[in-house]
């Protein structure tokens, strides 16, 4: 469903993403791991068509993102980092706006809004202004937006960031449930999350894919490692590494 080939992104002289390729099939949940600044968000922004890759190709459900962006984006749901929202709207009107842009009108639109309000436990804040919501609710509102048209491909940039443990558990459960009939990519810093929700994980460091496999097979990469945490630390270089060397 998601095909990413030889993706490269260069900002000025800095190579942010360096030749990344992977694919995600229907029914797969791919965890995207990596230290801060490794190129996770940049890669996701290219997959969603927000950034134009310097070179390489992205296709969703067989539709090339660079050639037919509108058709490809129709198949896609995206939760950007920090869950941006229009602060002057209510939850329901925001979701209505997103539904309209997704081509849902009239009764379909109302049904879609009701469905995601219910799914994301937002019924109680339906007519509340987005401005007055707490972080958890804001996050869920933006998440609701990404699944309003029941997309085949779902891309979530740190979907559990800033949530409390109960909400984290709930979102993980939701991702796992939806993963049965969608292709999902989500990025995270929390490694237990990968074991809890992902069928596969990619570790990316300094713009390159350094490991790709099931959580189980990743553990075997480093002999003697008992948890993903240890694997992660031994195959990615910390930001401070070059300072120690110098």
């Amino acid at each position, binding site marked *: 469903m998601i095909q990413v080939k030889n993706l490269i992104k260069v900002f000025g002289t800095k190579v942010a993403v360096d030749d990344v390729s992977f694919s995600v099939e229907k029914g797969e949940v791919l965890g995207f791991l990596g230290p801060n600044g490794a190129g996770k968000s940049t890669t996701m922004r290219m997959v969603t068509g927000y950034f*134009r890759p310097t070179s390489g190709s992205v296709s969703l459900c067989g539709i090339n993102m660079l050639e037919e962006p509108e058709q490809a984006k129709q198949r896609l749901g995206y939760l950007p980092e920090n869950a941006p929202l229009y602060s002057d709207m209510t939850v329901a009107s925001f979701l209505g*706006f997103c539904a309209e842009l997704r081509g849902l009108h009239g009764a379909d639109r109302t049904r879609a809004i009701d469905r995601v309000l219910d799914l994301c436990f937002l019924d109680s804040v339906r007519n509340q202004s987005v401005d007055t919501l707490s972080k958890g609710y804001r996050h869920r509102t933006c998440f609701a937006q990404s699944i309003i048209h029941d997309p085949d491909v779902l891309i979530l940039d740190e979907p559990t960031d800033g949530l409390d443990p109960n909400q984290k558990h709930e979102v993980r459960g939701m991702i796992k449930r939806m993963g049965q009939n969608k292709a999902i990519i989500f990025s995270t810093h929390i490694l237990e999350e990968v074991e809890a929700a992902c069928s596969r994980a990619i570790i990316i460091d300094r713009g390159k894919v350094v490991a790709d496999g099931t959580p189980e097979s990743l553990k075997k990469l480093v002999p003697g490692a008992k948890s993903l945490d240890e694997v992660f630390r031994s195959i990615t270089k910390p930001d401070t590494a070059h300072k120690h060397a110098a």
Partner: protein
Amino acid sequence: MSNRDIQNTKAVFKREFLAYFNSPVLYVIVVIFLLAAMGFPFFFSRILDSEDVSLTERFFVWHPWIYTVLAPAVGMRLWSEEHRLGTIELLLTMPVSPWQAILGKFFAASCVWLIGLTLTFPIVWTVCYLGYPDMGPIMSGYIASYLYALACLALTSAISAITRSQVVCFIVSVAFCIVIALIGDPGVTHTIVSTTPDWAAGFVRFVSYFSFMDHFFELTKGIFVFRDVFYFLSVIIVTLIITNLALRAKRA
């Protein structure tokens, strides 16, 4: 224009237009616009003391200067706000083409001015009560005034696509609006021509032809010249194209 284009533009337009009503910006700007547009003819142009009921010299003459300050205030939120909130990432990963979004937003801001300008109707009423004005120049004056406002808005839209700060966008847009109004001023042109070498005079005059002012006053005289309407429309189209390029450059 496909059905999809219209639906998407309409959805963006609706959101943007309602956003104006949900914030104090619209009310503040319309009220200030009305105070200025209706007050200046009476207090500075002394419209009641004159024997003349045409609006060109006393009412429309103030509009370019009012728009110079107020049009950027309406337009500055168009894209700067999207950049600041990060919602631009949401908007541009929806199945919406940049043009649908640009036009939807531009039409929404245009409608704000339509409201403001429509609410100046009492002045037309006043001059009709006091005498028998020629309606032709009044109509063309309104068209000229609206086109001027739209040109300032489109200019602001382009600048707001570049910056995430509304304050920067406002100040830069006002500066641009002042410059583009002043380069056509006969006094300014004359001063520059007299201080530059002869070979540059033609160039100065050529540049001064790009000013909004000449075209604006031609239109308010009541001669509906297609050339001047075309000038404003081309300014709007060019600045909206710049908006599109700026948005593309912004997300590299």
